[in-house]
């Protein structure tokens, strides 16, 4: 069954919620699709905490935003994924109360971001997890481990380390890959007005320092070791390209290694829709070109928030509002004050973009983190494909990461390349002496999320998904 709506929004984080609210308030018929039980995205994930006595300002804002979205008449489909696209603006859905597909005048993609994974010997051992995964456990009141090593760059790993320390874990070390602090003038320029962020970062540092938990700059992970789970990490000094300095390795006992090497825009759906993407390392990965109204090269397809370039929650809120107003106008709901609203949002957006530039200039990963793999290191966790197997495929003539995928199944598993895409691209670029932008990233294929045959059949009774494509042609 194909549903029709004026504005479909994919992703219920700050960008998607604010887009939904703005579009609905302008008078558009809006459907918001979110993967989780309650919308909010990772930015508002904390709200799931069963802790009424520890409500943060952010939780209150998220609650208010979700209430406003429902009151504005937005149809919210939770626990629903978009697993494919079928011509034009038809999205294939899988979810408990969702139609099998939805067609709309305009689509706003707000799929957000996920954390960057890096491959190194032992990275598939239980106990190696993203900093965000550790944070999720702490939200639930569970320690991700007893002896944590946090490695990576940027503020998230500091926040997670501080929370873990406050909760009773021992943080054996926080390793920041950056070798030197940036000039103060640059910091002041980018951080001015970002007081909540500054407070959060500094209080995290302080929480670690007062507990005697060391933060080291210019260090990185080399390997994880252990029998069936992490028991020890090998760490080493890194140079300004984040390449390991030989001879500086040392072993450090721990049971958990949290990886905090930043974020990757969730670009798969944009890719399937045929949006032009370009590889921008400082934006986290492949991002769409957009006009000032957040519209991509495909008329009626918008992209907001981290999926269009990692920039954080406040920026996503602003971009969502702009896209919501524009998408509603495109669907025929042009209100007189839409332009005024857009102009009003602009200074705040410029302010957030200044922070984004500082963030990316400091924390964009350098090539060294992709050079830790040895022959038997898995590049693909799902299909368990090693670096040696990928190298053999390249020797046999596979020239791009998409060809490597076809030959080895690297990137063809359950995660649809979300984890290994950049790992593989960097590996292929290095093996074939090409630049990363020339190699590009794996092309995501439907289904973007695993479907059982049952679910697939339920999606297309009598092949109706296929027919809806033919109907359009």
């Amino acid at each position, binding site marked *: 069954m194909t549903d029709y709506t004026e504005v479909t929004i994919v992703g219920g984080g700050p960008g998607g919620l604010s887009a939904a609210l703005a579009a609905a308030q302008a008078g558009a018929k809006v459907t918001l699709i979110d*993967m*989780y*039980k309650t919308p909010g995205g*990772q930015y508002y*994930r904390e709200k*799931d*905490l*069963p*802790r009424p006595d*520890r409500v943060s300002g952010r939780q209150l804002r998220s609650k208010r935003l979700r209430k406003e979205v429902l009151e504005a008449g937005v149809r919210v489909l939770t626990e629903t994924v978009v697993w494919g696209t079928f011509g034009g603006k038809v999205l294939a859905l899988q979810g408990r109360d969702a139609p099998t597909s939805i067609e709309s005048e305009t689509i706003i993609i707000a799929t957000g971001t*996920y*954390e960057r*994974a890096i491959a190194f010997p032992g990275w*598939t*051992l*239980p*106990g*190696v*997890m*993203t900093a*965000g*995964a*550790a*944070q*999720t*456990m*702490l939200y*639930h*009141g*569970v*320690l*991700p*481990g*007893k002896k944590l090593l946090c490695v990576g760059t940027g503020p998230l790993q500091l926040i997670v380390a501080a929370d873990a320390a406050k*909760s*009773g874990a021992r943080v054996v070390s926080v390793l920041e890959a950056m070798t030197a602090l940036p000039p103060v003038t640059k910091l002041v320029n980018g951080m001015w007005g970002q007081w909540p962020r500054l407070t959060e970062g500094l209080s995290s540092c302080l929480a670690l320092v007062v507990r005697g938990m060391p933060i080291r700059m210019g260090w990185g992970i080399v390997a994880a070791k252990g029998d*069936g*789970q*992490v028991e020890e990490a090998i760490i080493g000094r890194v140079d300004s390209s984040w390449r390991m300095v030989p001879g500086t390795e040392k072993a450090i006992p721990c*049971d958990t290694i949290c990886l905090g090497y930043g974020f990757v825009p969730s670009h798969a759906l944009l890719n399937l829709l045929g949006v032009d993407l370009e590889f921008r390392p400082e934006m986290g990965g492949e991002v769409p070109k957009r006009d000032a109204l957040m519209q991509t090269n495909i008329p009626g397809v918008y992209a907001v928030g981290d999926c269009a370039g990692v920039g954080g929650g406040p920026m996503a809120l602003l971009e969502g509002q702009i896209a919501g107003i524009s998408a509603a106008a495109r669907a025929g709901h042009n209100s007189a004050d839409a332009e005024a609203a857009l102009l009003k949002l602009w200074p705040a957006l410029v302010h957030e973009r200044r922070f984004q530039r500082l963030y990316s200039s400091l924390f964009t990963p350098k090539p060294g983190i992709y050079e830790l793999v040895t022959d038997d290191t898995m590049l693909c*966790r*799902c299909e*368990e494909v090693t670096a040696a197997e990928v190298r053999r495929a390249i020797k046999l003539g596979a020239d791009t990461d998409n060809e490597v995928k076809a030959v080895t199944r690297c990137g063809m*598993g*359950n*995660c649809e390349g*979300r*984890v290994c895409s950049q790992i593989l691209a960097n590996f292929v670029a290095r093996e074939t002496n090409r630049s990363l932008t020339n190699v590009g990233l794996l092309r995501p294929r439907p289904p973007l999320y*695993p479907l*059982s045959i049952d679910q697939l059949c339920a999606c297309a009774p009598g092949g109706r998904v296929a027919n809806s494509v033919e109907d359009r042609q």
Partner: protein
Amino acid sequence: MSGREDLIMKTSLHEEPNGKTITLMIDGLPVLANKGDTIASALMATGRRAWRLTRKGGQRGLFCGIGQCFDCLVMVDGVPGTRACMTLVIAGMVVDTRSNPEVAS
């Protein structure tokens, strides 16, 4: 009295007033969890780090924590390939980590 003394990885945040804990079955044994826990946090609270065996015999547990990597798969009430990090616990839920969900699906 949290009723969770068996859960070795709990923090002070995990203290819950009586009545908000539920019991589910994990690999044939009753496990106490908080309402609001995911299967992953319930497993981690008991000290479990690894709960999936890959086709090549590798051990896996929590990796991304937000439903993107599909490393934490378990069998839930007979349904294989269920993400432990995305599935909230329900009283009486039967979770099986011993069968290989990947092969079963």
